[in-house]
C-alpha cells in the first residue's frame, strides 16, 4: 500500500539545461535528487527557473539537455502522459475540474490507469479520510461548493490517488490564508511520513521551505546557488543572495519575538 521505498533515489536530475525560444536560459545545469520520504524545496523569485525545473520532471515542459531519472528510468523513454500518471501533481490554485465532483476529481488518474471501479471507489474514500475530509459530506460536492483549503486538500488527494512514488507541488499552499496554510502544511508532512513518497515542492516562501523541507535548493537566474538542509542554509549561507532571502523570515521572527517580550 505505501509507495515502494528503495535504496535508490526516486528522482535524480543531472545537468538539466533548458533554453526557451528567444534564447532565455531558464535552467542552467540544474541537479537534484529526492529519495523516498524526502521533501525537497526549490526556492527562488519568479524567473529563477524553479518552475521550469519542476515541470521538466513530469514533462509539462519538455526538458532540454541533461538527464532526469525517475525510479531509474529516463523520463524521455516514457510517453509523457504515462509518466504523469505515475507522478502526483499539485498545482497553484487547486486545478480541480469545475465540472467534476470531489470523488470524480480524485478518481481521475486511477480511472486513466483503468483501475476496477470498486477499487477506485474504496480509494476515493480512503483518500478523503487521509486529507481529513468526511467522505459522506464531500464525495459528491462540486469544487465551487468548497472552501479554498478544502479544495487544496482534494487536489492533494487527487495527486496521491494512484499511489505515486513522487509528488510534485507547484506553489501548492501559497494561495491559502495563513491559518489554513499552516494546518494543511502540518497535515501534509504527517501524510508524507506515513506514505513515504518523495516530494519536490516549488515555493517563493523561504519560511515555508525552512519549516517543511529536508533539503532546499536556492535558485537564481536558472542556476542552483546552494543546496543544503534548512539548518545548514541558515547557518552557512553560501551566497549573499541566500542571506538576502533568509533576511525576510528572520526579520519577521524577530519582530514577533520582540512583541512577545513586551509587557
Amino acid at each position, binding site marked *: 500500500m505505501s509507495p515502494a521505498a528503495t535504496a535508490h533515489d526516486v528522482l535524480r536530475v543531472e545537468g538539466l539545461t533548458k533554453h526557451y525560444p528567444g534564447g532565455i536560459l531558464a535552467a542552467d545545469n540544474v541537479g537534484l535528487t529526492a529519495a523516498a520520504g524526502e521533501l525537497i524545496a526549490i526556492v527562488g523569485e519568479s524567473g529563477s527557473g524553479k518552475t521550469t525545473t519542476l515541470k521538466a520532471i*513530469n514533462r*509539462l515542459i519538455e526538458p532540454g539537455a541533461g538527464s532526469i531519472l525517475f525510479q531509474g528510468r529516463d523520463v524521455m523513454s516514457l510517453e509523457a*502522459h*504515462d*509518466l*504523469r*500518471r*505515475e507522478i502526483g*501533481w499539485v*498545482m*497553484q*490554485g487547486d*486545478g*480541480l*475540474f*469545475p*465540472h467534476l465532483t470531489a470523488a470524480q476529481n480524485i478518481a*481521475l*488518474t486511477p480511472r*486513466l490507469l483503468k483501475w476496477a471501479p470498486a477499487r477506485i471507489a474504496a480509494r476515493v474514500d480512503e483518500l478523503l479520510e487521509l486529507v481529513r475530509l468526511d467522505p459522506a459530506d464531500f464525495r459528491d460536492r462540486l469544487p465551487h461548493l468548497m472552501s479554498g483549503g478544502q479544495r487544496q486538500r482534494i487536489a492533494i488527494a*487527487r495527486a496521491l490517488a494512484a499511489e505515486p512514488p513522487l509528488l510534485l507541488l507547484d506553489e501548492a499552499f501559497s494561495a491559502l490564508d495563513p491559518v489554513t496554510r499552516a494546518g494543511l502544511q502540518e497535515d501534509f508532512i504527517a501524510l508524507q511520513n506515513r506514505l513515504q513518497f518523495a516530494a519536490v515542492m516549488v515555493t517563493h516562501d523561504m519560511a515555508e521551505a525552512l519549516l517543511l523541507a529536508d533539503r532546499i535548493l536556492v535558485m537564481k537566474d536558472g542556476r542552483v546557488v546552494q543546496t543544503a538542509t534548512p539548518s545548514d542554509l541558515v547557518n552557512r549561507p553560501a551566497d549573499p543572495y541566500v542571506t538576502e532571502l533568509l533576511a525576510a523570515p528572520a526579520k519577521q521572527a524577530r519582530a514577533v519575538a520582540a512583541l512577545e517580550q513586551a509587557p
Partner: protein
Amino acid sequence: MSDQLAEAFTVLPQYLGGHMRLSMAAIACAILISLPLGILAARRQWLAGPALGIAGTLQTIPGLALLALMVPILGGTIGFAPAFVALTLYGILPVLRNTIVGLQGVDPVVREAARGVGMTQSQSLIEVELPLALPTIVAGIRTAVVWVVGAAVLATPVGAASLGNYIFAGLQTRNWTAVLFGCVASALLAILLDQIVRSYEIAARRRNRVMAALSTLAGIVLIGGALLPGWLDTAGQSTVAGDQAEAIGLEGRVVVVGSKPFTEQFILAALFERVLEAEGAIVRRRDGLGSTVAFDALASSGIDVYADYSGTLWANVLNREDNPGRHRIIAETSAALLNDYGILSLGSLGFENAYGFAMSREGADRLGVTSIAGLAGERVTIGADSEFFVRPEWTGTREAYGLQDATPRPMDSTFMYGAVRDGQVDVITAYTTDGRIAAYDLVILDDPRGILPPYDAMILLSPEAAADDAVAAALAPLVNAITPAMMREANRRVDLEGQTPEQAADWLWGEIGG
C-alpha cells in the same frame, strides 16, 4: 377567411415537412463542419482567423442573395440542393465561433491540470475542455437553429418547398392569412427546436438520463414528422396515378411546373397543373421562383414548364432593346430559345401582360395627361417592382419621354396599385392584366412611340419536356385560349375577392371550355 385558413392547413404537411427537412439537414451539416473545424482552430490560431473571417463574410451576405447565388453556382439546379448549401453556410458561423471561443475560454490552469493528471490530448479535449465549453457551444447551436429555421423561408424563391411558400405566395395574392400563418409556423418551429437543444444541454450538464431521453424522443418525433409527409406525399401521388389508368399520354410521368412570384403566375401554374393531371401526369409545383431562377431552372430542366413573357425574354435573355412588333418578337424569341437553350415555346396563351404606366384618374386629370409623353419634365414619383428599374424598358422610356426628373420608388408589385390609388406615388408601372386597374379606376397612359415592348404570355417547355411530345400535346389546348379580359378577371378574383389561385384556375378552365 376561414377558407384561406383551411387551405393553409391542407398544405401544411408539405410546407412544414420541406421546411424541417431543409433546416435540420442544414443545421446537422453545419454542426458536422464547424465543430471539428472549431476544435482544430481553437488549437491553431493561424486557422482561427481565416476560418472566422470566411464564415463571417458569408454571414454578411443577405440570406435571399446567398440562396439565389447558389442556383448559378450549382449550375442552374433549383430546389433542395441550393437552399441546403446556402443554409448550411449560414449555420456555420455561430457554431464555429462559439466552439472556438468556448474552447479558448477554458481556464489554462484547468488545461494544465488535465495534462498534469496524465490525460492525453484527446482525453483532455473530450473529458475536460468540451464539457466546460459545452454551454457556449450549445448557445452557438441554438443561434444557428434560430437563424437557419428563419432563413429557410427564403428557400421558396429557389424552388424548395418551405413555410416561405405561405409568405411569398400570400404576399403576392394579398392573402394575409397565409403570410401570418407562415410567419407563426416558422417562429413556432424555431422556438420548439431551440427548446429541444436547450433541454438537451441541461440534461447533459446535469447528467439527467430521463431528460436526455425525453429530448431525444422529441427530436426523433420531430425528425420523423419531417420525413413522414414526404413519404405520404409520394405514396399518395403514385396512387392517384394508378387510379387514372385509362388516362392517356402522360401516365405516371412527373412534370414540374414553375411560377414566378405573382398572382397571375400562380393561377397559370395551377391551370397547367390541372391540365397535366387530367392527362395522368404527376405534377410537382415550384412556386414563386425568382425571374432569372425560373428561366435558368427551365434551361437546365430543373422545372419542365412555366409561363414567361415575350418582352421579358426579349430584353433579359436575347438582350435586345429594339421593338420590331409583337409577332416578330414572339417568333424571334421562340427561335432563339430553341436554338440557344433547347427550350420549346408552344406559343402565346392569348393575352398580353405588359408594363403600362398607370395613374389614378384624378391624378391624370390634374396633370392633364393621357400619354407618357405628358409626364416629360414633371417631378413625379414612379412606383414599380424593383426589377423594372434595372430593365432596358425603364432607361428606354426615360430617354424617349424625358422622365429624368421622375423619382423611382421600387416596391413590391402587390402594393403599388393601392399606393397610386391613395396618391402615395403619382405613377406606377402596372401589369396590364391586373384586376385592380379596373377596380381602382386607374388610367393606362399611351405609349405613342412604342417604347414598351409587348409582353405576350408564352408557354415554355424545358429541353427534357420538349423531347417528349406528350407534355406539349397536353398543354396545347391552352394556346391562344385566354383572352386579356379572362386573365384580368382571374387575377381580380384572387387579388380582390380572396379566392385561391386554384379556384381562379378552375374558373379559367371552365371559361376555356375544358
